[in-house]
Structure formats: structure tokens, C-alpha cells
């Protein structure tokens, strides 16, 4: 079946891209072949004077290259050829003697934008779904079809580098301001405007574009000396953000620089060379695997397909209007547009909760992600009170009250009394087994866990926790709702700590043990950020709150015995009134909410003297293996359904380094043999808390892996 349909009206060929059987348009090999043929036809057909490229998909122009094809690349030269061919195709558009206009509505990303950049004129819609960007670096790649060349030439080096190096996309209005598109129109007149523009280009020739930058831009973007400053600033920013673990942004910067300084031919060569190396490199491979794992999770409802149909959630009840409850309410309203009722015992807390929930909307308004009327409409969906009135019609109730079993049981009983029998009840507990909360439930089949992470609107993961009694309908409803809230959802077992807190537990314990042995806090945290975590374990303890961590540690200790016994460190800091960031006192000092260095007074408090020559190799080995081993054990016990779920959970739940692909992927990469050896060594020195997981021993014996090689 053909992906490109062409009609000719008054000498203008309108090419409609509509990839059969796919929700969005992607640039695959097959499409490229068809497109090349079409270009020849347009070139040779004397009845065609200009062309318009438009999408036949709703709200999507071209989402980018077909990433499946990248995974088939085995050699650098093959990858380089893929990029080169893309560049050639795009070049042919640019050098076509007849003007081509891109009519952009919806996602215009990656190769899609590179193609649009080669067109002679771009019209975009002002619809929020219209997003233009080059997200390649997020997959460890760089724009390989001329994007590193044409974007800086069109919008200036600074703006182009900002887009290419971060991979973030821009809405139509911003794209117009940047000069990335020539016209911005409502979707209703996109096609007509593009056709008219094509006619104009035929009549009047190609437009001359004035640079959109001011004097500063003139100096920075249009002089070699100015650009040197721009490159240096960009490099500094990249290194500060992602360290040296991710090669793609620096390679993209290089391709842009060579292109601007040495000409487009050299630039294109640098571009496809870098693309070839990166595409078969380890980092990109990992990031692409994560991309597919996440994409697969988006289609995984946590139950066998067809087993149950999700309930429609028209009304959400949230019990507990604190930070978590308000975050859940605000995120639900912002992303799902669901009528939401907050309940708390105290009206002032309810008011604060409504304020915090609508604050999430206000932030989006500020960032122009929503309009003022949308803000008003969405804000009116959040309401609250100090009783359960308004809950009778709730389809889903999420409780986010204090972590206390009796309290949560009471809330469940109160909710069951207030709602309809079909209403689903979810507990946002981080530590309490759901089956304990549901022990006295009238309808245990409607009870499950929905474990959000804080702050809810920012953290991308949600753990959905069914019990043995939970109905499939409740599971699929919670998974779908979480997904609509913008979360990546993993269904995990009702085991203590579920998944994320389970694998975090020995890791945080080990950090505290290291401190008690005199390893300075900054050494521990620096070691792990260098390993790739966004924050170190000690800083994470401060973020989570020492009281919360202590409580969770107690639960894990009770469940798993001495292996997960927390050291005294936390208790002593808590006794000193330190709660972490929330009261401005923890392992670190805080000034006006900003972290201001390690608080050295903790060392005398703990009765230790920090050692000066801590071996960071040992620190890394102990911390990393504590987590890897726990991940293997928890997977053995069925805490998660698959290595894929476990790895995605670790990436999105605790910021496990994405370029490592997750703890279980890391074991595969290090090899089970080496991980087992390291654990046995650690066990010899530090005792049974490092006793290896059964599956690691078996993996070594049988030569198995978590993922197929």
C-alpha cells in the first residue's frame, strides 16, 4: 500500500503522507523509496510547478525515523550509510527546482523536521499538538539527515544548539518566533495557506529570510569569534548536565560547528560519521532499548489482554490534602481533565491542597502549556471539603493520608461507606502491604495500591499494586488512569517496599553504613553521581526525608530480617531533629531551600571522624552491588513481572542511569559471573547482607541472562 497520495490542483501537487496501518507517520526505508520516486515525478511532470507536503494523520505530521530500523543496524558503516542516504534524500528536496512547502500540523520531530527544514517554506498550525523538535540526543543519537546543518543556518547557532543538544521540542508560536516556520495558522486553513504559499513561491521566487536575532544575535551567531563563545558555552552546559556519560550532545555540537565553520559538505560528513558511530554505540543501544521498553509498557495493561475492560473515570476522590494528595489531584486534573474532590479532616489543609493542586495548573499557564480559559476550566475541576460528600459518584478514590495502617484502614472503611460498590479504592502507600490495608475491606476486589513518587507532577513512575483479591478490572483501570496521568506504569507485587523502595533499601542502608565507617558524605554522593545517578544516596535520603526513610527502613527490616537492618545513623540524626530538606536540616545544610554543602556537625554527632583517603572504587562497588543484588532477589521473588518492568522502574523511579539500562541490564552487561564474584568478596568482608541472589548463582551455573543476548 502506498504511503504518499498525490493530487495536483492548478499546478500544485499536494502530497499527503499517510502511512498505512500506523497511528503516526514514520520515515522508513520503504517510505524513502516511495518519496524519492515521487520527487522524480514532481521534477519531470511539467504540469506540476510546486508541491505541498501535508500529513493525513490526525495531529501528527511526521514523528521521525522508524526507530525499529536502527536496531537492525549492526555495523558502523551501515548506520553511517543510513544517515548519508537520509541526507541525500533531503538534499534532493532542497535542490528541487520547484518549490516545496511543508504544511505542519502535529508532531514534526527528528527526520520529520529535517525534511521540513529542507522544504522551501514552512507553514505550521497554532494547535498545541504541533511540536517541532530534534529529539535524537534523547536516544543517544544526533540529527543525521542534515538537521545539524540546516537548523543553525535557519535560526542561528544559539537557538539551534538549544534545540539539538536538549532534544526538546517547540510549539508553533515559539517556532514562528525563532524563524523555524514562516507562517502560523489555525488548522482549519493549513492546507489552503500552504497551497497559496506554493503558488506565491512559483510567482515571486523563494523568500529572503531576515535573521530574527537582534544585535546580540548578530554578534554571537554571525561572527566566527561570537560562535566560538557560543560553542564553548554549549559544551559547558552539556557537561554540567549529563557529565561525560552521554557522547551524543558533544558529537552534535561538533557536527554543527564543523558545518558552520567549514561549510555544509564538511558538516554533513561530520554528521553522518558521528551518527554511524553513535547508532551502534553502547549508550544509544541502551537508550533505544529503554525507549522500546517504555513503549511496550504503554501497551501493557498489567493483565492478560481482553481479560477486563477499564472503567471510565469521570470523577476522582482524593483523601488527604497534603503534598502527595494535592500532587495527585493536580496532576490528574491537568493531564486527565477529571473532576476531582479532595477530602481532609481540616478545611485549612483542604484549602492549601486545592491551592497546591491548582498551582500545578498555574505553572502550566505560566509556561504557556495551557491558555487562560483552559486554566480557568481545569481549576474549576478541583474542589474539596472536610467530609465525604461528593464521593458518592467517584469512580476512583486514591488515599494519600499519613503512613499508618490503622488510619488507612479507617479511611478505607469510611470511603467504602460513602461510595458506590463499583468504586475502586487505591492506597498511595509506599511501605504498607496493600493486603493489610484491605484486610477488613467489604469489597477487597476493588482495593489496590497506586504508589506515586514525590513530587507527583514531575516523577514519571507509578507502581500499581494488586493484591491476590484485586479484580482484573480494578488493575486495568488503575494502570490506564495512571498512564493518562502521564506516568509510566509498572504492575508490581504486594511485597514489602514493592519494587522501587525494595531495591533502594539496601543501597541507602549501605550509604549510611559507609558514613558510619567514616566515608565522607560528599565522597559517597560524588561517587554515585559520577556513576550516573542524578543525585547521590545521601542527598536522596535528605530529599525523601529522614523520618520517612527511617520508617521505610523499619518496615523492610521487619520483612527481610537482618539483611536489611538499617544502621543507627538515621536514628541519631533524627534524634537531633533532622528531617532532611523539609526542615532544612539533614546530612546537608540548606539555605532558603537550596542545598548548601554537607553539614560537618553530623560527624561529631555520629561519633566519627571522616577519613580522608576513602577508596571510591570500594564505595562504588558496595553501593552498586547492594542494589544489583537486591534487584536480582526481588525479581526472583516475583516483585516485578519482568526484568523490563524492573529496569524501567529503576530508571524512572530512582533515576538509575539510563545509559546503563537498569540494574538487571547492568548485571547482564557486567556478566553474572563478575557480579557474583564481587558479591562473594563483599560477603567475605562485610557479612551476609551481601549474600548473592539465587538467580545470580543459577545464571552463572546455567549461563543464563535476564535479557536475550
Amino acid at each position, binding site marked *: 500500500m502506498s504511503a504518499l497520495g498525490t493530487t495536483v490542483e492548478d499546478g500544485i501537487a499536494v502530497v499527503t503522507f499517510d502511512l498505512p496501518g500506523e497511528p503516526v507517520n514514520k520515515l522508513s526505508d520503504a517510505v524513502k523509496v516511495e518519496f524519492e520516486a515521487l520527487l522524480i515525478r514532481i521534477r519531470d511532470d511539467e504540469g506540476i510547478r510546486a508541491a505541498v507536503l501535508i500529513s493525513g494523520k490526525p495531529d501528527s505530521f511526521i514523528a521521525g525515523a522508524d526507530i525499529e530500523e536502527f536496531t537492525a543496524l549492526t555495523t558502523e558503516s551501515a548506520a553511517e550509510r543510513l544517515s548519508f542516504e537520509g541526507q541525500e534524500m533531503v538534499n534532493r528536496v532542497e535542490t528541487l527546482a520547484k518549490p516545496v512547502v511543508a504544511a505542519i500540523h502535529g508532531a514534526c520531530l527528528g527526520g520529520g523536521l529535517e525534511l521540513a527544514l529542507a522544504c522551501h517554506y514552512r507553514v505550521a498550525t497554532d494547535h498545541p499538538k504541533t511540536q517541532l523538535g530534534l529529539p535524537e540526543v534523547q536516544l543517544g543519537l544526533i540529527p543525521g539527515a542534515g538537521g545539524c546543518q540546516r537548523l543553525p543556518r535557519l535560526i542561528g547557532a544559539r537557538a539551534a544548539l538549544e534545540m539539538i543538544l536538549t532534544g526538546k521540542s517547540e510549539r508553533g508560536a515559539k517556532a514562528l518566533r525563532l524563524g523555524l516556520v514562516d507562517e502560523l495558522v489555525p488548522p482549519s486553513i493549513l492546507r489552503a495557506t500552504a497551497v497559496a504559499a506554493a503558488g506565491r513561491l512559483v510567482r515571486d521566487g523563494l523568500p529572503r529570510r531576515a535573521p530574527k536575532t537582534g544585535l546580540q544575535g548578530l554578534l554571537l551567531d554571525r561572527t566566527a569569534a561570537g560562535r566560538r563563545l557560543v560553542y564553548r558555552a554549549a559544551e559547558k552546559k552539556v557537561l554540567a548536565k549529563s557529565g561525560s556519560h552521554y557522547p551524543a550532545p558533544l558529537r552534535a555540537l561538533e557536527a554543527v560547528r564543523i558545518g558552520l565553520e567549514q561549510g555544509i559538505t564538511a558538516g554533513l560528513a561530520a554528521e553522518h560519521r558521528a551518527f554511524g558511530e553513535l547508532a551502534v554505540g553502547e549508550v544509544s543501544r541502551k537508550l533505544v532499548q529503554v525507549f522500546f521498553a517504555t513503549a511496550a509498557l504503554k501497551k501493557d495493561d498489567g493483565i492478560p489482554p481482553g481479560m477486563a475492560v477499564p472503567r471510565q473515570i469521570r470523577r476522582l476522590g482524593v483523601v488527604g490534602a497534603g503534598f502527595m494528595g494535592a500532587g495527585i489531584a493536580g496532576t490528574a486534573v491537568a493531564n486527565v481533565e477529571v473532576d476531582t474532590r479532595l477530602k481532609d479532616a481540616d478545611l485549612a489543609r483542604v484549602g492549601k491542597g486545592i491551592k497546591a493542586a491548582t498551582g500545578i495548573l498555574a505553572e502550566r499557564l505560566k509556561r504557556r502549556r495551557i491558555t487562560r480559559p483552559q486554566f480557568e476550566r481545569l481549576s*474549576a*475541576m478541583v474542589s474539596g471539603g472536610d467530609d465525604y*460528600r461528593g464521593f458518592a459518584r467517584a469512580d476512583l478514590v486514591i488515599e494519600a493520608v499519613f503512613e499508618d495502617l490503622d488510619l488507612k484502614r479507617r479511611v478505607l472503611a469510611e470511603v467504602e461507606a460513602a461510595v458506590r460498590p463499583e468504586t475502586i479504592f487505591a492506597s498511595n502507600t509506599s511501605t504498607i502491604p496493600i493486603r493489610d490495608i484491605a484486610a477488613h475491606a467489604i469489597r477487597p476486589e476493588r482495593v489496590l495500591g497506586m504508589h506515586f513518587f514525590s513530587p507527583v507532577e514531575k516523577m514519571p513512575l507509578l507502581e500499581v499494586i494488586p493484591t491476590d483479591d484485586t479484580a482484573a478490572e480494578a488493575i486495568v483501570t488503575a494502570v490506564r488512569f495512571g498512564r493518562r496521568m502521564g506516568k509510566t506504569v509498572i504492575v508490581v507485587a504486594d511485597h514489602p517496599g514493592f519494587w522501587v523502595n525494595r531495591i533502594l533499601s539496601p543501597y541507602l542502608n549501605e550509604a549510611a553504613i559507609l558514613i558510619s565507617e567514616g566515608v565522607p558524605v560528599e565522597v559517597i554522593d560524588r561517587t554515585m553521581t559520577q556513576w550516573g545517578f542524578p543525585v547521590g544516596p545521601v542527598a536522596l535520603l535528605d530529599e525523601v526525608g529522614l523520618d520517612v526513610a527511617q520508617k521505610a527502613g523499619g518496615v523492610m527490616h521487619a520483612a527481610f530480617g537482618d539483611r536489611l537492618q538499617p544502621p543507627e545513623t538515621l536514628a541519631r540524626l533524627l534524634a537531633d531533629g533532622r528531617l532532611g530538606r523539609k526542615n532544612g536540616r539533614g546530612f546537608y545544610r540548606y539555605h532558603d531551600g537550596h542545598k548548601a554543602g554537607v553539614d560537618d556537625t553530623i560527624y561529631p554527632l555520629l561519633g566519627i571522624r571522616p577519613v580522608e583517603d576513602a577508596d571510591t572504587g570500594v564505595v562504588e562497588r558496595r553501593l552498586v552491588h547492594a542494589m544489583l543484588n537486591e534487584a536480582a532477589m526481588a525479581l526472583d521473588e516475583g516483585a516485578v513481572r519482568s526484568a523490563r518492568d524492573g529496569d524501567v522502574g529503576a530508571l524512572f523511579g530512582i533515576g538509575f542511569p539510563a545509559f546503563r539500562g537498569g540494574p538487571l541490564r547492568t548485571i547482564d552487561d557486567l556478566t553474572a559471573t563478575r557480579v557474583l564474584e564481587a558479591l562473594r568478596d563483599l560477603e567475605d568482608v562485610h557479612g551476609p547482607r551481601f549474600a548473592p541472589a539465587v538467580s545470580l548463582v543459577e545464571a552463572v551455573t546455567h549461563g543464563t541472562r535476564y535479557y536475550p543476548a
Partner: protein
Amino acid sequence: MHDSRLGRRVAIVAGLRTPFAKSGTVLRDVSATALARHAARELLVRSELDGREIDEVIFGQVVPSVRVPNVAREVSLLPQLLPSVPAYSLNRACASAAQAITNAADQIALGHADVVLAGGVESLSDIPVLHSRRFSQILVEAGKAKSVGGRLAALARTRPRDLVPVTPAVAEPSTGETMGQSAEKMAKENGITREAQDRLALQSHERAAAATADGRLSAEIAPWFGGRGMDEIIAGDNGIRSDTSLEALGQLRPVFDRRYGSVTAGNASPLTDGAAAVLLMAEDKAIALGYEPLAFLRSYAVAAVDPGWQLLMGPVYAVPRALERAGIAWGDLGLVEIHEAFAAQVLSNVQAWGSQAWADRLGLPGPVGEVDWERTNVMGGSIAIGHPFGATGARLVTTLANEMRRRDVQFGLISICAQGGMGSALVLERD
């Protein structure tokens, strides 16, 4: 018994309002739209009604904001309702919410609607302040000018006195008399003493304070989340004085006639911000949705007198007309709610209903009835609770319907006087 002449019987299912606050106080920064939407949405929440059931929204407002001329539409655009729900705002002065409710009832009785949200709102902290006529004309001219010079020339004609803003009048357009002056005139002509007025004001405060303390009044209020942090909870009306006394009221100076007058700030209703909403349904619809109606609307009537006579005497005609339409007599009433614009007005209305001399003067066959204060304004009135012009009618309907249920009363009456010499009366019934 049901011999309503309205067609389908109209149920009052529930009512709710915001706290009433003296203008310029705690709700000063809140728009009328926000107040109206709050009352309406919380009413939906508390009655557990799916907003998609609502067929129409009607709200009363006496002084609309320039930016929001149709506040009812803003209410009907709450995301809990369907955007296809039509809405209009109306103005029958202080009887506006009552008018919204009776209009809603008409629509239900006719079968045009099954469920209607009716109410009213007023924010006198948020009234339009206008430019002088001359300055407006200058601005319009300057706006139309084709050149900068022309624009400047137009603006140059501005004189300092043109810049004095014009606030909306509280005076009758036809007579130039303010509402307070009218009340003062009625007190004098009808021989209503200062003491009688203060005594009624005291009763209003005492009863409202008691009904707040025992929760009857609080139950009709959806608390407002005030302050920047939304954590300053406003749960009650701030005009109610539980500590006032005849002595304290007696200390106040008359406002409209300093020498011979008797109308004071203490025996008149204050300017007030607030909103109130009532949920009305066709009887069969209410039953189908599982509601037990508080009461039913039995009849209503509106009347008017010459504003140049006694401005606030409209109710003396409206009430007997409503009773006649209801097919009942004054003696059948178990509860009465009289809107207290001024104590002098209430006592003048009461006097007029009660005597043969007044009946003769008004051309009525006989006295309407003798007010029994044990059954009248039992939870206080507008003098204490406050009087957001557009909202009061809905407050009265809510309070009367709730109290009729609590006391298991068969018939109840509402009487409201309104600007322009108008009066409005509603009869509610229970089975």
C-alpha cells in the same frame, strides 16, 4: 393534596450559598462569578448530582460586572455541567434570585426542563465604576480619531471634573429617592417607632446567631477558601452580631434623617457580597434520581406599587395574590420568611397585612393576616445575615424549605420587597 396550577409539580431539592460578607470585607477580592460558581458547584457536590443532569441555569444579579454581563452563563460553563446548557441572568432587583427560581419552576412546569439550577449573586465590592458621560464621549472620539493629532485634540478637551468617577446610583431613577429615604418615609407615615425597628433588628441578630450556633444556618453555607494560601476558611456570615443589644442599637445615629429619623445602620440590611443557588427538579425527575425533595413550589406572585408612594410596599399586594393562587389562607402558613431590607419596611408590610383599615386603603377584601413572630424569620433575616441583592431570594427559599422539613410544616411563605416598588411572594408546600 396537589392542586398546583403550575402544571408539573416543581420540587426544591437542595439549596446552598456562600458565606455572606459585608461588602469591602473578607470577600472583597472575589468576583461575583467566582462566588456564583462556588455556590453552584458545591451545591452539585453536596447533592451528589451529576452535573450533566442540569438542563438550564438562571441567576439573578442586580449590578453586573461590565466584563461579565451574563454571570449565569459563567456558572453553566462549570466543567461539571455540559457546555450545551443554556443560561441567562436576570434582574428583578432584590427579588432577582426569587425570580430566577420561579422562572426555573415555569420551565419545569411547562416541561421544557427537568432540572434547573437557579440562584443569584451580588458582589458590591466589585461594582463597575463609570467615567463621566463627557469623558466617555471624549474617549470614544479619541479612539475613532484617524491621526495622533486628532487623538490628542480630543483628549485635550478633558477637564478635571470629567475625571470624577460615577458610581452606580442607589436612588430610584423615577423619584430620585434613595432606598433609605424611602424606608425613613415609611417609618414616619406608618408610625413605626425607632424602638420597634431596633427590636426587630435585635431579633434578627439573636435568631441568626442561634441558628449559626446550632448549625442550621452553617449547613446552608459552603465555606469559602480565602487568602492567598486558600487556607483562611470563611465558614459563616460576618454581619451577625451575637453580642448586640437594644442599648447598643439605640446608640446608633439615624443615617437618612439625622434630626427626626429612625432608620440606622443597625436596623437596615448591610451592603453584602455573596451568592446562593437552589436546585429545582420536576417531581418525577427528583424521584427518579432518588431525591427526597425538601419542599415544592406551590405558587408565586409579583406585584408593584407606585415608587413615589411607599416604595417597599410591593409585598402587601404580592402576598395575598400568591396565597390566592395557592388556594390557601394566611392561617394555613406554618412558617414565613420576610426579607428584611429595613426593619421599617418589614414592620410597615406587617402592619399593612394586618388591618382592615389598610385593606380598605389597598382595595383588598380584608386583612391578609396577622404575623406571628414565633413562625416568622425564625433563623433571623437580612438585617443580620446580610443582603447580596441578587442572592437573597435563593437564601430565603433554602432556609424556608429546610426549616419546613425540620418542623414538618405544610405551607410556608416568602415575601420580598424590591426596588421599583415591587414585591415578590412564593408559597412552598410539603406533603
